[in-house]
């Protein structure tokens, strides 16, 4: 609890300094949340290039709108929402169900020379499993587990009741579990 309060206070202080144009504060925020956001973006998009662009765009938007920005919740949650919106708007996310092999290929073999993200084996398996979910379910699972957002916040983002978001989460997680355990389930709600 204390650790969480300390992190929130640190974020508030970093944002306060960043709003005044402090370069060190921006470096600290970037270093602190870069990997989390990249993981989230890759899980959502199943594409390293899209993920890299989305994370960079989210930070750029954050910098441009820093004067009007007021930190009400967690900074990570705010940035995660930015990334999710970027990926949605990019239109390059694979909403249609990509096959497990396709998804695996996306994050591993198709690595470009300028690609700066290298996923672990475990992350590759998770991304491949998440790619099999309907996008709404994938978004809820990812934003909840990797973005740290509350179900209420995710529901607002998806413009659905909180119960729907919760239901999508349970269903999506169950399916990921089945896929990772080598089972086959059907839950496309």
């Amino acid at each position, binding site marked *: 609890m204390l650790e969480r309060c300390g992190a929130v206070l640190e974020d508030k202080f970093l944002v306060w300094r*960043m709003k005044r*144009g402090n*370069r060190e504060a*921006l*470096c600290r925020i*970037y270093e602190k949340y*870069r*990997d989390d956001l*990249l*993981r989230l973006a*890759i*899980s959502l998009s199943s594409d390293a290039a899209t993920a*890299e662009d989305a994370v*960079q765009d989210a*930070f*750029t938007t954050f*910098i*441009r709108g*820093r*004067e009007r920005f007021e930190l009400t919740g967690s900074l990570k949650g705010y940035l995660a929402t930015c990334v999710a919106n970027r990926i949605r708007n990019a239109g390059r996310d694979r909403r249609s169900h990509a096959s497990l092999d396709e998804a695996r290929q996306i994050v591993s073999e198709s690595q470009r020379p*300028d*690609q*700066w*993200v*290298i*996923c*672990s084996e*475990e*992350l590759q398996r*998770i991304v491949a499993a*998440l790619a099999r979910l309907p996008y709404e379910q994938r978004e809820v*699972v*990812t934003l909840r*587990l*990797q973005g740290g957002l509350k179900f209420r916040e995710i529901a607002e983002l998806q413009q659905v009741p909180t119960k729907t978001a919760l239901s999508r989460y349970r269903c999506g*997680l*169950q399916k*990921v*579990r089945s896929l*990772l*355990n080598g089972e086959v389930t059907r839950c496309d709600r």
Partner: protein
Amino acid sequence: MRSLREIEKSVAKASLRSDGAANQKVLNDLLTELDQAKQDSLSGHRLSGSRSIVRRPLVRLALAAAILITTAIVIDHHLPPEPTHPGADPRAVARVETVNAIGLNLAYRRGGLEAVEQQYMKTFKNSKPRPPRLSVDDLLTELTENGDS
């Protein structure tokens, strides 16, 4: 077989590694963006500052007054000076006033307040509405008639 709890942990903590050099490049781009945004906001503040000063009602009023006064001064300097009483000879005016005072004094001595009142009535009669154009002969005739009465 992994439980849901383990799956949650795996999804949340699956590791990822990013290239240091590429990270630094992205960070440099972001820092450049920050510097640029800082410059833009500074110039924006300067502009909005001057605009906000003009937006204040008192300042606007003072500005309008200053413009009006300046315009008035400039016009006043460029116009020729106007005569105080156009067409009136100051000596003649003084003479008429003296005559009137003397006339009233004489009238009072002659017949008291009644005579003064008659003198007033005569004056009002003389200052009846005149036609827009009077010839010299008309004026002379009128003066003669007044003198006779």
